[in-house]
């Protein structure tokens, strides 16, 4: 090693030559660990301040799995009721159409059904007097006594008994709840069900090729609409996914960000000339304009949004107004700072050739601050496209409100996932658009 080859004299000489490296002040030695310690202590404080142990203890973790699974999958929920005359198959809120006959349910004889969960080794056989649950190839017979299902003696971890019901879990593929009166099946599948056409649509159940041939060559389904128009209408008015409504709300959010930022820029830019002390030589005007910016900026966007929702009702107008008010303040402040920090020589040059006061600002100030300002505006546009979603959630309309509504039902998580995907696409597109405009207008050297 290198250290071992240094003689003590050399070492001392080195240390004497660089005292700053070897003899640091107490502050220099201590600040980094101290900062880490303070942060750690703060986290511990927050841990108890927010009541984390209690919240985590009360949390309903089983929901988390279901909700996350709902993002990308769906459930078919048939019931097999034991009636006097045999077994009735009943579908509630069927996503498979009116009279489904899926291949994972097979009728075995007059009054017996088999439901498979992914493979033949995992199935439930429903018969009038007994139910056989096959888990990983092993048969477990569930019988009934005194109006309740009895847990089989061979039951494994996949079985649970509660209130006279035996539940058999098949992992992601679903579960079977065996009661004395019925067998309730929840069979889970990957994907978004009926994404294009709902069960009431004439196009329901068609493959992409079939839809294509129906649209291009098939007989006209409705007399007053062409098949293509019908297909588009059926897609947009899909009752499960509400495509038209989602697109409309998404456009509202985009409009909020666009109009709000544009108005803020148009108002803030001229006002910042009044606020800059090197342009307007009037202390009172400077002070007043600057404090107005502070006021607009410091009253939270939430407050503006809620106030305007009270005034104009839910919709994009409160969103536009909230973004406009807050960003006029912020853009005004940054633009004022940019103007106050400009190089004065350009202005002097323009003034020295006898230009009018307006021309002095136009050719002496604007070229210097315009790139900074434009870059700021584009950045705010980007960031507002995101924050307009949140503002919408408090009542300002747009996709945010729709998201919150979908989440409240706790059942439409697949719709939430769909909207999230759309939002992500919009954010990426607008990020790239804003970057493209920025490099086009001010060169790639800008922010």
């Amino acid at each position: 090693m290198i250290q071992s080859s240094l003689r003590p004299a050399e070492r001392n000489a080195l240390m004497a030559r660089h005292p700053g490296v070897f003899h640091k002040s107490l502050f220099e030695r201590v600040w980094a660990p101290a900062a880490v310690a303070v942060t750690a202590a703060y986290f511990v404080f927050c841990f108890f301040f927010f009541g984390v142990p209690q919240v985590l203890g009360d949390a309903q973790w089983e929901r988390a799995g279901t909700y996350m699974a709902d993002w990308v999958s769906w459930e078919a929920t048939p019931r097999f009721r034991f009636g006097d005359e045999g077994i009735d198959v009943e579908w509630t809120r069927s996503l498979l159409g009116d009279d489904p006959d899926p291949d994972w349910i097979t009728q075995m004889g007059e009054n017996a059904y088999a439901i498979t969960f992914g493979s033949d080794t995992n199935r439930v056989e429903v018969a009038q007097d007994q139910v056989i649950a096959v888990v990983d190839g092993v048969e477990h017979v569930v019988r009934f006594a005194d109006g309740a299902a009895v847990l089989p003696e061979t039951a494994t971890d996949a079985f649970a008994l509660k209130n006279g019901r035996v539940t058999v879990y098949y992992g992601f593929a679903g579960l079977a709840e065996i009661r004395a009166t019925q067998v309730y099946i929840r069979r889970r599948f990957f994907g978004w069900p009926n994404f294009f056409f709902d069960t009431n649509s004439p196009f329901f159940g068609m493959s992409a090729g079939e839809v294509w041939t129906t649209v291009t060559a098939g007989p006209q389904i409705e007399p007053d609409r062409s098949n293509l128009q019908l297909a588009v209408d059926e897609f947009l008015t899909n009752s499960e996914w509400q495509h038209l409504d989602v697109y409309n709300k998404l456009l509202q959010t985009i409009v909020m960000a666009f109009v709000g930022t544009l108005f803020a820029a148009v108002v803030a830019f001229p006002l910042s000339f009044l606020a800059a002390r090197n342009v307007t030589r009037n202390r009172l005007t400077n002070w007043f304009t600057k404090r107005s910016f502070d006021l607009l900026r410091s009253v939270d966007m939430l407050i503006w949004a809620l106030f305007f929702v009270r005034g104009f009702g839910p919709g994009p107008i409160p969103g536009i107004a909230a973004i406009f008010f807050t960003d006029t303040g912020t853009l005004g402040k940054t633009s004022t700072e940019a103007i106050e920090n400009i190089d004065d020589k350009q202005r002097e040059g323009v003034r020295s050739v006898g230009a009018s006061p307006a021309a002095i600002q136009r050719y002496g100030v604007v070229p210097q601050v315009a790139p900074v300002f434009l870059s700021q505006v584009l950045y705010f546009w980007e960031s507002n496209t995101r924050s307009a979603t949140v503002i919408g959630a408090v009542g300002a309309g747009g996709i945010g409100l729709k998201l919150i509504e979908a989440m409240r039902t706790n059942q439409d998580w697949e719709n939430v996932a769909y909207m999230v995907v759309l939002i992500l696409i919009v954010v990426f597109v607008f990020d790239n658009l804003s970057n493209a405009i920025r490099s086009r207008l001010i060169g790639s050297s800008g922010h």
Partner: protein
Amino acid sequence: MSMIDAGPGRTELSEAGRTIHRHYQQLLRTRRLYSLLALGGVATLLFFALWFANDNNAGKFFDRLPYFFDFFIHFQPDDPFEIVRALFDLPSPYADGSLKYDYEEGRVYLFGSVYLPEYFYQMLVTINIALCATLAGAAMAFVLCFFAATNLVGAGAVRFLVRRLLELMRAFPEIVIAGLLVAILSIGPIAAVVAIFIHTTGALGKLFFEVVENADMKPDEGLRSVGATWLECVRYGMVPQVLPNFVSYALLRTEINVRASTIIGAVGGGGIGEVFRLSLSRDHAAKTYAIIVLLFATILLIDWFSGWLRQRLVGNAAFQFGA
């Protein structure tokens, strides 16, 4: 640009000069045309956007405008001191047992009869949400940013993955994370902390790796030449350079996050946002104004403090906002 025109009384330009002038004028015309076209495009877009916004709003802009200030006229506390009483949880002379005047209810007793008024406590919750999320997010971004910088890891798979991860974290809507967690953990600040933490990691991570990419590579070279490992190069060559900028960005982010945590609070994150939304929707004027005053003062204070700290840390450069 009339200044350039050779008007009467000025020296006539030579043939070459006139050609240059003509070309210049031509260039200027094309530029003006393009500017005009762009302006027209934006104006058309704006027109349709405004029409669309108005068409989709519950109340139409010009129908509602005359009544807009009615709300402020009717929305007034019984007397100005009611705001002070609501702010400091003092008993109200108008108390009639309703929620509107129950100012003392929300007191948070610290010890004995010393209490923290409700809104100050809720404000503290909101600030803590922001601070917690910013600290955790900054720490996470600090770890990730070095793996997203081309000058440290090259342009390979690591950079690609980390950058996409940061983009996803930045663009993922905060309310969805908050909403999902609220459904699992019930309403409370933890959902807000996690939601803001994820967004902060993405946003700061991007800024951080841009700082790292713009850093001077000479210290790194020097360290590598004496056989330092990658980790040592980052620790002694990179971190000291970029730390002031990191801290400055993190402070800016704290300001932004205090605002974000009020909004997230209103959609289920708890804190002052929730209280504000409730008091406004229940028409409690004094309480609402008290919260506005408190929020206004707090945000002003935080902005000022963080500005002062940033100036101490990185000097005036920190005031050039950017990205």
